[in-house]
Every structure is written in C-alpha cells, then in structure tokens.
C-alpha cells in the first residue's frame, strides 16, 4: 500500500474536516473560505506532482493513480477552486451555513475525484454516493421553498438512479463473479459470457450513470434542480457532476466492457442514440425557457449530448488506435470553463437584479459592459462559434467521430448547434439591444471577478491555442490504448 499516491484525497478530506471544526471556534468566518482554497491548492500541487506515475494502484487495485485519474483530479480541483472563488459574495445567502457550504463542496469534490480514479464497482458506488449526498445537501442550502423542493426531487430521483445502478452492478457481478473492472473483462473474455442478465446489467449501469450526466431519458430532475439550487451550486453541479459521470463511464466502459468489440460497438450505438435524443430534447426544450438557470439546465442536457458523441465514438472505435476519448476530456475542460464562467456571471448579475428572468437582463450591456461581455463570450462558446473554446471542443470531438464512421451523428449534432444558437443569442440580444430599466452598475467584490476572468481567459486560450490541452488530454487517455 502506497499512501503517497493518496495525498491529494487525504488533503481534501482533512481540509473539509478542519473547516467544519474551525467553524466552531472562530468568529471570522471568511477564514474557512481561505482555508478551503488553500487546501485545494495543496491538493492540486500533490496531484500535479503525481503526473508521472503511470499505472500505480492502491488498496488492492480498488483505486488507480494513473494519468487519467490525475487529469480529472486537477480538473475537479480547478472546478472547486473557481466555484469557491465565485461564491465570495453569494455566501451571505447561506447565513449560518457558510462553513458547511465550503466543507460540502470539498467533500463532494473528493467524491468526484474518487469516481474518476475508482477501478472497482464497490469504490465507484461509494465515491458516487459521497459526491451525490454532499450535492443533495448543497442544493437544499438556501432553505427556502424552491431550494428544498429541488433538493427533495434530486434526492428521490438520485436514490432511484443509485438503485438502478446498484442493480446493474449486482447483475454484472452475478454473471462474472467479479467487481474489479479489469477482472470483469477477463471473465467475460475467458468464459465468453453473453447471458441476458449481463447485458441487462450493462444497460442498467448506463441508466444509473446517465442520471449523473443528465442524459435523456434520465434528465427529469435537471430543470427543477438547476432552478431551485443556489446558483453557485447549480454551476458546480452542472460541470462537476457531469464531468465525474463521464470520467466514470469512460473508465468502466473501457476497462470492464471494452472487450469484445461486438459489445463495445453495441454500447457505442446506445450512446449514439442517447446523444441524439439528448441533443434534440435539450435544445428544443431550452427554446421556450424564460428563466436563465432553467435554460442553462436544458442546455446542459444538450451539451451532454455532444459529449456522448464522443462516448459513441469511443465505443464504436474501440479497436482502432485513435484516441477517441481525448475529445471527451478536452470537451469537458472547455465546458467546465465555459459553463462556470456563465454561472459566475449569472451569480454576480442576479445578486444585483434579484431575478433569474432573462427579460430582466435587459440593457446589461450598458450597465456593466464587461460583465455582459464575459457572459456573451461564454454563451458564444456554448453555441460553438470560434474563437471560443466551445468551437474547438466540438470540432475535436466531431472530427474524431467523423473519422470513425459516425458522420450522420456529426451532422445531427452540428444542426443541433444551430438550433441552440437561437436561445443562447436571445440572452445576448436582451443584454445588448434592449433598453435598461436603470443605469446602476452591477457591483461585485474582487474574488468572483478573478474567477470570471480566469474562466474567460481560459475559454479564449483553449479556443485559439488548444494544442497544449489536447496534448494533455491525449496523455491522460493513453491508459485506454493499453
């Protein structure tokens, strides 16, 4: 056992506990915020130092510490860092629960990190629950009617999804006698398992994970939860939870169900179909929305659809040497920056105007041009227009899909991007072309602005010189070529 490789996780857990304990003794609550940020930075340094250690495993092969895991560690830590920075003003809404808020974010990040590194069905389930339960509480933290309702919905549906996932895992275990991902694949290969129970198990697992990534038809919770949750939590949920879901799907479906090719091809097609319905449902349902958080909720369903184009490629092209998964990783990074940027801008703006209605964003371009510009950039990135990161991400994922015979899927996805332009641009239009009800500027403290600046700089950087991040993504997905 090599605890060296577990340092980032230990740091995070310790910071979370410390934050809660400290809350009892100090009056100056902002200390807990800075402590959380410091913990994340330290964990990030530890994670970055691990980047060379390929193929190491911990706890009897239950957790991996490979480059894929490191990539996601850094991604989740970055997301948590930006969310905490962006919450500096918003935290006042949590009254007495500020420290709990930060501790829960840390714990949920820990869960997501473990999800990306877990290599055993049991650890996957535990990690997923750690991430989910923290999120249920976070969603309810506003303590008003909407927030509580959202949390209850999320909890009930999440519990059902967990049950489905667990049932799927049980069936897979029942057919193969293994819980470890690589052992499952070996068992399938050796015994030539093709029993219906096993396949039902795989499909149920797709359902369970589909809930996490908000794929249609497991998306019912999204609009209500996105609308009711505290806006910072919505932002965190929309990128963190989704990225964790994709990380776990990539690893499970490669390690456990990647062989034989007939099977990977089959689930590749399942993901292709899910991608199509997610894109269409997400984009079409987003059009009539008047609440910006709800709209971004549907938009995140559509974005999950684009990401699943990458998963479909991953399944269909399992036998080829191309790194289909690096497209998914690059897209996740770009999506994280873009969506977090959008949500941080929304947090800052709605704090002033006290509304999430798109119509109330009127004249934002005149009131706070820089804020409006930042939100515009993020929305343009979500549409996928260059020079924003969203374009490169789509181009990368689509080019890999087109290379592997999924051109029909690419055409559907590209047309969906056009549909999405309509509702994203409506927000842009309201901000820049409608007249403002007042001339007051939108105030904000420094930290959220810094977070927003980081997001926007990242979006532009990934859009103009994406080569480096693509290299990193390829490096991280190298474990899939073994």
């Amino acid at each position, binding site marked *: 056992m090599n605890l060296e490789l577990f340092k980032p996780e230990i740091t995070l857990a310790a910071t979370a506990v410390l934050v809660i304990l400290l809350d009892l003794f100090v009056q100056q609550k902002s200390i807990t915020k800075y402590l959380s940020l410091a913990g994340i930075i330290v964990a990030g340094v530890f994670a970055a130092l691990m980047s060379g250690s390929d193929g190491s495993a911990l706890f009897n092969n239950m957790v991996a510490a490979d480059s894929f895991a490191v990539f996601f560690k850094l991604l989740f830590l970055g997301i948590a860092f930006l969310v905490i920075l962006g919450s500096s003003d918003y935290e006042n809404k949590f009254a007495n629960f500020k420290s709990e808020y930060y501790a829960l974010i840390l714990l949920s990040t820990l869960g997501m990190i473990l999800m990306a590194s877990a290599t055993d069905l049991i650890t996957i389930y535990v990690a997923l629950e750690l991430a989910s339960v923290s999120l249920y509480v976070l969603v309810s933290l506003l303590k008003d009617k909407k927030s509580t309702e959202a949390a209850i919905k999320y909890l009930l549906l999440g519990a059902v999804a967990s049950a489905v996932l667990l049932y799927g895992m049980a069936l897979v275990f029942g057919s193969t006698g293994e819980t470890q991902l690589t052992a499952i694949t070996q068992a399938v290969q050796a015994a030539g398992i093709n029993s219906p129970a096993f396949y039902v198990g795989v499909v149920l697992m797709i359902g369970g994970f589909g809930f996490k990534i908000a794929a249609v038809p497991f998306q019912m919770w999204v609009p209500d939860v996105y609308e009711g949750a505290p806006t910072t939590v919505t932002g965190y949920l929309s990128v963190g939870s989704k990225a964790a879901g994709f990380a776990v799907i990539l690893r499970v479906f490669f390690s456990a169900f990647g062989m034989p090719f007939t099977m990977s091809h089959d689930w590749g097609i399942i993901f292709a179909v899910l991608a199509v319905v997610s894109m269409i449902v997400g984009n079409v349902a987003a059009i009539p929305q008047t609440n910006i958080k709800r709209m971004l909720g549907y938009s995140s369903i559509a974005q999950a659809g684009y990401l699943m184009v990458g998963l479909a490629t991953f399944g269909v092209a399992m036998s080829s040497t191309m790194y289909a998964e690096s497209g998914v990783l690059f897209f996740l990074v770009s999506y994280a920056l873009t969506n977090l940027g959008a949500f941080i801008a929304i947090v800052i703006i709605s704090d002033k105007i006290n509304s999430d209605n798109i119509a109330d964003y009127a004249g934002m371009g005149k009131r706070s041009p820089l804020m409006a510009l930042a939100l515009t950039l993020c929305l343009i990135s979500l549409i996928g*227009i260059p020079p924003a990161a969203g374009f490169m991400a789509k181009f990368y994922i689509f080019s890999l899909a087109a290379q592997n015979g999924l051109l029909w899927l690419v055409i559907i996805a590209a047309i969906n*991007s056009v549909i999405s332009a309509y509702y994203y641009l409506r927000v842009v239009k309201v901000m820049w072309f409608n007249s403002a009800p007042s001339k007051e500027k939108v105030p904000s403290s420094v930290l959220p602005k810094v977070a927003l600046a980081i997001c926007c700089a990242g979006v532009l950087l990934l859009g103009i010189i994406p*080569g480096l991040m693509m290299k990193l993504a390829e490096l991280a997905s190298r474990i899939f070529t073994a």
Partner: protein
Amino acid sequence: MDFNWLSTILFLPAAGAIVIALIKGKDEKLYKWLAAVFTAIPLALAIYLFVAFDRTAGGIQFEESYLWISPLNSYYHLGVDGLSLPLMLLTTFLGFLAVLISWKVTSRPREFFAWLLLLETSIIGVFVSLDLLLFFIMWEIEVIPMYFLISVWGSGRKGYSATKYVIYTLLGSAFMLAGILSLYFTTGSLSMVDIANGGLGMVQAAMPAAAIFWLLFIGFAVKLPMFPLHTWLPDAHTDAPTAVSVMLAGVLIKMGGYGMIRLCVSMFPSQAQEYAQILIILALIGIIYGAAVTLMQKDIKRMIAYSSISHMGYVLLGIFALGEVSLTGASLQMFSHGIVTGLLFAMAGLIIHNVEVRDLTKLGGLAKQIPIIMVVFVIAGLASLGLPTTSGFAAEFLVFLGSYTSNVVAHLNVYTIIAIIGVVLTAGYILWMLQQAFHGPVKKEFNKVKDADGLERFYMFALVAVIMLVGIYPAVLTDVFKVGIEPIVKLIGG
C-alpha cells in the same frame, strides 16, 4: 518571405478594433480616425502585394505556415494566389470605404467601428487561409460582428433579420463543417493545397466524394446565395446599416463563390462536372427569378438587394460552366459586383440619409436637387446592367462568352441565351429605379436636400474610378485571375 505581409493585413483591422474598444476618452472623431487608419494601412499593403505579385510564376505567394494545433495536424497557413489576391484587395478597399461611409454614425460609434473592423479581419481571413480549420474559423467568426451590426444599427425589422441571417449562416456552416471533417478524415490533411493537388485518391467507399461535395456546396450556396437558399439576403441587406450592406453585398457573399471555386471545383472536379447541369439550371432560375422579383420592389435598398441574387446567378453560371474563360468571368463578376453594388448601396444609403425617404414611388425629380449623387447613381446603375466601358460589361461578357463556348453540359449555349434575358430584365429595373428617383416633376419638399459633401464625393469617385478602370482595361484584373484559375482548369481537364 521575411515579412509576414498577409498576417499584417489580416490582423491590423482586428488590432484596430481592440484599440478602439479599449481606448480612453469619448471623442467620436478619434474612433473614426483610428478606424480609418487601421483600414487604410491594410489597403495600402494589399495594393503593394497586388503590384508585387509575380504574374509569371503564378502559384501561391506570400506564404506563411506555422504549426498551430499539432494533434489535429492543423497549420496557421496563409497565402494568396491569383484567385484570392484580387478578392483580398477588394475586401481591404471596401473595408476602408465602409469606414468613410459610416462617418456620420452617431449612435454608439465606439462599438460600431470595433465590430466593423472585426468583420473586415474575418472576411480577409477567409480569402487568405489555406488551412481548412483556419478557413472555417474565419468563416464562422464573421457571424458575430454581423449579428451585432445589423441588430443594433440596422433599421426596420432588424432583430428578425439579424437572427435570420445568423441561423441561415450557421445552418450552412453546419453542413460545411461536416464536409470539412469528412475531407479531413478521407485525406488526413487540413491543407487546401495538398488536398487540391493530391486529389481524393484515398476516398473510401463509406463516404462518397459526391456527398462531401454537396455538404460543402450547401454551405457556400447559402452564402452566395443560390436560389432557393437566398431568402435571408433581402432582409439582411435591407435592414443593415449602409456600410454593412456595402460589406455584405460587396465582399461577404463573395465568400460563397470563392469557396465554391476553391473547394468544390478544385477539389472535386469530376463531381463538379457531373452536377454542372443541375447547378446551371439553378443559376438560371436565380438570374431570372431574382431579376423578376427585383422588378416588383419599391424599397430602394430592397431592390438593390434582390438584384444581387440575380447577379450572383451569373457567378454560379460562370463557375459551373467550368471553362477558363467562364471561371475568369465569374471571378471578375464577383469583383465587379462588389464595387458596383457597394457603390449602389452607398448611394442608396446617402439618399435615405439625406432625403429620408426610401420608397421609390415617393421619390422623384431629384436630378435637379442632388446632381452629383444622381450622376454617380446613374453610373453605378449602368455598370450594374452591364454597359460597355464599365466593369459590369467586361465581367458579364466573359461569363457569357465562356459559358456559350463551354461544352461541359449539353446545350449550354441555349442556357446562356436564356441567361442573357436576365440582362434585359436588369436594364428594366435599373432604368425604372433611376427614373423613379431622379426624373419626373421636381418635388418642392426635397428642395433643401443636401448633395454629397467632400468626403462622400471622395469615396464615390474612388469607386467610380475603379469601375471605369476595370471596364476599360479588364486585363488589370483578369491577368491575375487567370494565374489563379489556370491550375484549377487543368484539374478539371478542360
């Protein structure tokens, strides 16, 4: 090449946009002068390149190539050949004039000039990119400035027109993206030069070349615009501010024709031949239908907008007649239409600004009150209907000559004769427009209307001079176009 000429031309307007957006102070004059300077330098450089271009060597010149995104094997690759150089020159020319034309913009001038300059960069980028990814990025970026320019500074149903424009363009580019991706995965390269030279030898059975051809073609056909994908154009042109109409009609829709020649024809010569018949028929419908609809218009800008559909039909006809003469004619028609329609829109904008009436039936007798505008408008109109000694004549003559003698499609000479009917219709609406606006009884309410001032005279005469120059001595352009088109014709095998 030691100095990165093309990068300088490409990014100067964008740099100007950033400077204008960030500079302190509220002096409107300052923005205008900055915009003028940041578009004048690229124009001067483009003229220099046009002169320095080696017409005997041909090929791609002033090349710049740097590795850009290694995982995608994409290069920052710029260069111009005989085909793209004049179009780049046209873009910088109209970009500079568009700033002068907008000199009287008073509403939010800082943003206006920043977007206008950004628009110029993206259009230049389309003409000078030799990497498919870079080309596509430039093609897409143009949407954002256009959206803002039309919906903030436009008139009439500007929000509707701007959104319609964006949706049409993005829909076209969705198909084009699929086409570019399939090109990329069949050839493994994003370099336009390599793909055109290497041909599609590696095309797999799974993805027939014909499908790629059509995917790309739809993207360009929306922009050209080709009948029946043209319906965004009248709305966008009519509701856009004058300078943007000039850019839109002058160079933006030329991106479609350029893309067809550069990608569809030179990469898929056999598919181009195979489908020439249907495309030429669509071109004819565009010519006749566009001209017929133009005859019905009463709004002065809408009329010019519809005439573009008809004129771009000649471009399509010239391209898919697939001969050296016809392709040269099509390219020249693109250039000529750019300056002629640019001038027409500038004049229409001036009338709308000075007279404050845009309905042709309410105008009349203006010849006495605004003689200078009248004279220039008449010259532009006559150039548009293709009177000899104007650029319109040279271009249309080459198109008809080329298509009449081409034998890529059976009975092309009959088609050509039908197309020539379009010229008669053009004469009809142009003369009617001139008559409605300038002749008839003098109306007293227009007595105080101002004629063109010094600045306006400057850009009018600059455009008229170019129209005349190209009309009297078309070789100044055709010599260059030929250098670019010869290798493409060789690929076709004609």
